[in-house]
């Protein structure tokens, strides 16, 4: 699937909540901080419920819970309303990553499941995954080479 820069920009602009400058930073701070506190609460709760799990697994599970909540709220149409006020406060937390997966998937569902939903799912999350995986390979290989000496 080929998409030129302009089309891509338009798609992102469409999915990015429109915000006015000024108090946007304060809103981002408040809502971003709040979402992180919710994440911390789930992390603390999971630690009590699953004492056998180590910190790494608790962290991963917390991410799963937050992603589920982000996807669900996007499906219900609530997350985009939050995003209208929160801006980066709703984009940067992992719930925003879930939102960036679900939102285009819902929008392009009508174009068919394979080329609509499944393909468009990654129109924003794709760059995130590609850059992240490539960075992790570079870091891993560099650490491996350093470890050889």
């Amino acid at each position: 699937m080929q998409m030129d820069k302009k089309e891509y920009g338009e798609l992102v602009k469409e999915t990015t909540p429109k915000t006015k400058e000024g108090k946007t930073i304060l809103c981002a701070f408040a809502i971003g901080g709040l979402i992180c506190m919710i994440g911390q609460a789930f992390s603390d709760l999971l630690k009590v419920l699953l004492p056998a799990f180590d910190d790494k697994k608790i962290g991963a599970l917390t991410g799963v819970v937050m992603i589920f909540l982000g996807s669900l709220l996007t499906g219900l149409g609530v997350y985009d309303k939050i995003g209208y006020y929160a801006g980066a406060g709703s984009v940067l937390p992992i719930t925003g990553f879930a939102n960036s997966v679900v939102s285009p998937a819902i929008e392009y569902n009508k174009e068919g499941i394979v080329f609509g939903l499944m393909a468009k799912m990654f129109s924003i999350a794709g760059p995130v995954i590609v850059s992240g995986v490539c960075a992790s390979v570079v870091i891993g290989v560099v650490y491996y080479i350093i470890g050889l000496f």
Partner: protein
Amino acid sequence: MEIFLTYLKVFAVGGLVCSVGQILINKTRMTSARVLVTFLLAGALLEAVGLFRYIEEFGKAGITIPITGFGKSLAAGAIEGAKLGLYQACTGGLAAVAAGLTAAIAFGFIIALISKSKPKST
């Protein structure tokens, strides 16, 4: 009282990360995908140079719930894998975020399938 202080730190660090993102959006007209990539790479880089754990000790979920935590997990997995061999150095990153990525794809698919597209409300 201590738990109150912990949550206050989480709120402050998480809020700070998000407001830096908002400033980037306001000043440079960055799209959300670019902001996400920037913060992901920042998280991975901070972990690679060993600074992430100090921020995490202080801010806990304030730095791990934003996408920086996703980058940190990728880098941490790769660094841990590098101790075992070249194969694990390459696969460790993705293995570390397997749960989150699977959740995003599986939940995303199911929820998108059952949700109706709504007209954009501005």
